[in-house]
C-alpha cells in the first residue's frame, strides 16, 4: 500500500469513508445501511477486502454493485448479487438467524451510549422534525454480531441524550444489553469525519480512541454535545492511501453519472 503524498488533498468526508472502510475485513458478513455505510462498505470491497460479504435489507445477498445504490433496492444490487431473497427471509434467516457479523449503520442522532435516533426531534406526539424512522436499524443493531456506526460529527448529531431511542446502543444508562440473551455486542466503533470512538469497556460511554490527522481534541469537544472523553493512549488515524482515494473518487464519479441519467 503506497502511502499518501501529503501534498495531495483529501476531504474530511473522504477521511471518514476511508477509515470506515478499513474497519471491514475479508470474511466478514456485513449488513449495510444506505448512504455513508454503503459507500464505506463498497470501498472496502474494492480495496483491501474483496472478500467482504455485503448484504442489503432489500434481500440482496453478497452483492457487488459497480455504482453505489441511491436506494436500498436499486436494480444494480440484485443484478450483482449471489442471490436475492424475500425481505421476510432476509430479516428472519439472515439477520435474526445470526449470519451477520457486522451491522453498518448511519444515524441522525447518537448519544453518549451510542443509542441512535432516526425517528424524530422533539416530542413524539408533536415533533419538531419528523425523521424517516427505524427501518432495519433496530434489529440490525441487536441481531448482528457487532455494529459499526458512521456519521458526520456535529453538536446537533452528537447529543448527550437522544430525543428518542429508535435503536439500542447501550441504553440510556449504558446497561441496556446487560443480561439480554441472544443479542450481539452492539456498537464497537463510531467513525466520524474527525475521529474514531469506541465504547468504554466498563461504562459503555463513547470515548475517542483515534484522532484523524490535523484534528485536535478541541475540534472534537467542540462538535460533541456532551463532555467527550479521550482514551489515555490516543492514536492518530492513519492517512488515506492514494489508491483508496482514487478508487473512492472513481466510485463516486461513476455513481453520480449514473444517477444523473434516468
Amino acid at each position: 500500500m503506497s502511502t499518501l503524498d501529503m501534498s495531495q488533498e483529501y476531504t474530511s468526508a473522504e477521511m471518514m469513508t476511508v477509515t470506515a472502510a478499513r474497519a471491514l475485513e475479508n470474511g466478514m458478513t456485513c449488513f449495510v445501511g444506505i448512504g455513508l455505510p454503503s459507500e464505506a462498505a463498497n470501498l472496502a470491497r474494492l480495496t483491501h477486502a474483496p472478500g467482504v460479504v455485503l448484504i442489503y435489507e432489500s434481500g440482496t445477498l453478497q452483492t457487488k454493485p459497480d455504482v453505489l445504490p441511491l436506494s436500498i433496492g436499486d436494480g444494480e444490487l440484485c443484478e450483482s448479487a449471489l442471490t436475492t431473497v424475500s425481505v421476510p427471509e432476509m430479516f428472519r434467516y439472515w439477520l435474526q438467524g445470526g449470519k451477520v457479523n457486522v451491522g453498518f449503520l448511519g444515524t441522525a442522532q447518537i448519544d453518549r451510549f451510542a443509542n441512535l435516533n432516526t425517528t424524530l426531534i422533539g416530542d413524539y406526539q408533536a415533533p419538531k422534525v419528523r425523521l424517516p424512522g427505524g427501518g432495519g436499524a433496530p434489529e440490525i443493531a441487536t441481531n448482528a454480531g457487532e455494529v459499526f456506526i458512521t456519521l458526520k460529527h456535529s453538536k446537533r448529531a452528537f447529543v448527550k441524550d437522544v430525543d428518542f431511542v429508535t435503536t439500542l446502543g447501550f441504553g440510556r444508562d449504558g446497561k441496556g444489553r446487560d443480561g439480554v440473551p441472544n443479542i450481539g455486542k452492539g456498537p464497537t466503533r463510531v467513525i466520524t469525519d474527525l475521529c474514531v470512538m469506541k465504547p468504554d469497556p466498563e461504562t459503555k460511554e463513547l470515548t475517542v480512541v483515534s484522532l484523524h490527522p490535523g484534528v485536535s481534541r478541541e475540534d472534537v469537544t467542540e462538535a460533541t454535545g456532551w463532555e467527550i472523553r479521550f482514551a489515555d493512549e490516543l492514536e492518530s488515524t492513519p492517512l488515506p492511501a492514494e489508491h483508496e482515494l482514487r478508487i473512492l473518487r472513481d466510485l463516486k464519479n461513476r455513481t453520480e453519472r449514473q444517477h444523473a441519467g434516468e
Partner: protein
Amino acid sequence: MAEFLSLHDAIAQYVEDGATVAMEGFTHLIPFAAGHEVIRQRKQDLTLIRMTPDLIYDQLIGAGCAKKVIFSWGGNPGVGSLHRLRDAVEKGWPRHIDILEHSHAAMACAFEAGAAGLPLAVLRGYVGSELPSVNDQIKFIECPFTGERLAAVPSIRPDVSVVHAQKADRAGNVLVEGIVGVQKEAVLAATRSIVTVEEIVDDLDAHPNACVIPGWAIDAVAVVEKGALPSYTHGYYPRNNRFYKEWDAIARDRDVFSRWIDENVMNQREDA
C-alpha cells in the same frame, strides 16, 4: 380466480373508501400507476400500509387519500424526507393523519404472518428500542420452552393489496422476479388483491422455484406498461433516480405539489 380488468375498474371495484390498503414493492416494482388511479378516483380515509411509504404514499397522502399510515421507514431513499408525509404529520395538511410505526423486521414478519394466516408474528425485535412506548401494537411474549422474551406484533391482513410484477400468463398466473420484497406476502395476506403487470404472455417461462403467484390467489390483473415508474421493473426499465431527486423540490411546496398532481395524475388517463 384472477379476472383481467382495466386498472380503472380494478381500483374502482376493490379499493373502497375507508379500506386498509397495502401497495407494496420494496424499492423495486412499486405500483405507482395504481397509486395514481387511486388518487384520480379520489379515494378517502384509507389506512395505507407499506414498509417504505416512498413517493407513492407521499403522493397519496398529499392528495388527501389517507387517514392513517403504517410504516417502518418513511424517507425518500438516498435523497431525504418525504415532505408530504412530514407536512401531514407535523402540520395536518391537507388533513391530519395518524401514524403507526414499526421496524422493518417487524413489518416483514407481520406480512409473513399475514400470508401464513396467523394473527401474530413473533420475532427477536425491538430490544431496547423506544418504539414500543409509542406503538401499543407491539407486545412481548415469553417463550414457553426457553423463557426468552420475544416481541409480538399483529399480522398484517389488508383489505386489499396492490403490487406490480413483470408479467402474467393468460390464466392470470403472475411472475415476480428480482427484488421480490414482501409482494407475495402482501398478496396472500390480503382479502382482495390487484396485480398490475407489464405484459401478458402465453408462457411465463419461469424456472422451477420462481416466485409465481397463481391466478387463483389473485382477484384482478391489469396490464399497465411502465406501471412502476419512477420505480423500476427488473428486466424492463431502470429506476428513474433523477426523478426521485427532483421529487424533493416538488414535494417541499404545497402549491408545486398540487400542480404536479393536477398535471401528472389528475389530467392523465390511466393508460397515458
